[in-house]
């Protein structure tokens, strides 16, 4: 089985972001960047399938500026075999990303595509589903468990009411949730080895896809700020406040 994994370079999830005062967006200059956490779970899932002898090649692809080489190297150090960077400095919408990935799927013909369920910058949660539509493949989003039974993948998904299990014939698309696995930290020798693995760089414009945005971002603003209220000294005091609040609540 051949697996394609898509990874995104984003502002590190531990960084407290700042909205630019002119409302043009979020400050990303000089901010620590890293692989989107959900993408890391997707890479780990692919590597585990390879280690179990169920996958023979893992290709990792990222779309973004030259610096996205970092996150491809991270994935190669975790155990992926080769990388592709679709290079662009433009901020692409999810539909354009999905179209570029569909082109890569068309060229590479993977049996399985693994992606993170969402990116922690735009929080969109679109790309896997869109890629599934564009390549006409079945999808399983929010995966927390993947098993390969012959030629069928059995995927457990985290849904609003609990969990559900579905069967997917290959080729298929899966998006990873956090409880799928615990991503490894690559050991130093693997990091060194990653540098010698093949990494192809291709300008996004070369893929012949219309990347023009469909939406206009008018403004980005910080959410209303919350400030500390008061500290109470006893349980009775807290209970009295809660009782008063609840009695005041308007029933919906």
């Amino acid at each position, binding site marked *: 089985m051949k697996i394609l994994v898509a990874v995104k370079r984003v502002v590190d999830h531990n960084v407290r972001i700042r909205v630019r005062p002119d409302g043009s967006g979020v400050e990303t200059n000089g901010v620590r960047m890293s692989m989107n956490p959900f993408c890391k779970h997707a890479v780990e899932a692919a590597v585990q399938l390879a280690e179990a002898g169920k996958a023979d090649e893992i290709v990792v692809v990222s779309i973004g500026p030259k610096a996205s080489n970092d996150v491809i190297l991270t994935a190669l150090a975790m155990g992926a075999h080769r990388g592709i960077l679709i290079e662009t400095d433009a901020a692409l919408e999810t539909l354009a990303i999905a179209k570029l990935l569909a082109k890569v799927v068309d060229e590479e013909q993977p049996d399985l595509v693994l992606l993170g369920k969402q990116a922690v910058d735009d929080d969109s949660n679109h790309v896997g589903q869109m890629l599934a539509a564009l390549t006409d493949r079945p999808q399983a989003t929010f995966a927390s468990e993947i098993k390969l039974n012959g030629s069928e993948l059995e995927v457990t998904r985290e849904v609003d009411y*609990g969990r559900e299990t579905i069967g997917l014939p290959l080729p298929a698309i899966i998006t990873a949730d956090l409880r799928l696995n615990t991503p490894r930290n690559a050991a130093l020798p693997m990091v060194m080895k990653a540098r010698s693995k093949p990494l192809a760089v291709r300008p996004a414009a070369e893929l012949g896809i219309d990347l023009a945005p469909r939406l206009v971002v008018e*403004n980005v603003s910080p959410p209303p700020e919350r400030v500390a209220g008061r500290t109470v000294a006893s349980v009775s005091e807290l209970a009295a406040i809660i009782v008063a609040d*609840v009695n005041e609540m308007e029933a919906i």
Partner: protein
Amino acid sequence: MSVLVLAELDGEVLSPATARIVAAATQLGPVDLLVSGPQAVAESASGLSGVARVILAPATALAEGMVDLLASLAPGYDYLVASASTTGKDVMPRLAARLDIQPVTDIVAIEGPNRFTRPIYAGNALETVTDGQARHVLTFRASAFRPAAGGNAAPIETREATIASAARFIAAHRTESDIPDLATAQIVVGGGVSVGSAEGFRLIEALGKSLGAAIGATRAAVDAGYAPNDWQVGQTGKIIAPDLYIAIGISGALQHLAGIQGAKKIVAINTDAEAPIVKIADVALIGDLFEIVPQLTAELEKAGLKR
């Protein structure tokens, strides 16, 4: 400007989120409601104020079939709308790509017929976009909108359709409970990893019961196996907007705060006066949850809240 809303089911009943999505969608135009499920759900859906027509179609459990159904209806509508629930997230981007539309999802405010506001970066920024496309694929965050009233009796039309899907449904693992729906509850009591065990969560549940509240948990508590995953509140769990959120032994990591930004009032119970959640809570009580929670439950029960 006509709107097609995908009704959401919670098992065999209409989910409480649907009334909120319908109320929001009526700001855009007359609303048709698609119910892919049993007749009884279509009947309760037809009661929602603002619904012009209910379209009843065969039940589908998987995204592919639902997208086929929506795509077949799409030509008649300017807006295709669903809740930003796990179903809406599964279905609407796939539909959008099929129709060559860039969707706008997780909308918390409708600023105009094609202007919408949505949170980004775990709610640490709000982005307002104008969608100039001819047709719009949207999801709304249910907790950001008030529910539609009842009392309507919209006509129900049945649509024949054969639904096919390459994927196959194997099993549902439903968390059974009689506590209120977390995503739309008016009061939520949440517990963190410091609750220590699944048994420890009974303390949280008992407090919740005295208030008629829904129960939430942090990711750390879910990962530790103390609470089911559908209780997770946060950036990647459920987004809630209750009138009152009581956070017990929860540090207030930004991914958790992302889920409670819409809460009107936050009460924090924590041993650490420096915990991030204490810094934003309206009321805080510093101390050990194992002492405080049973006492608080007893006092609230004594007060006999009528809910």
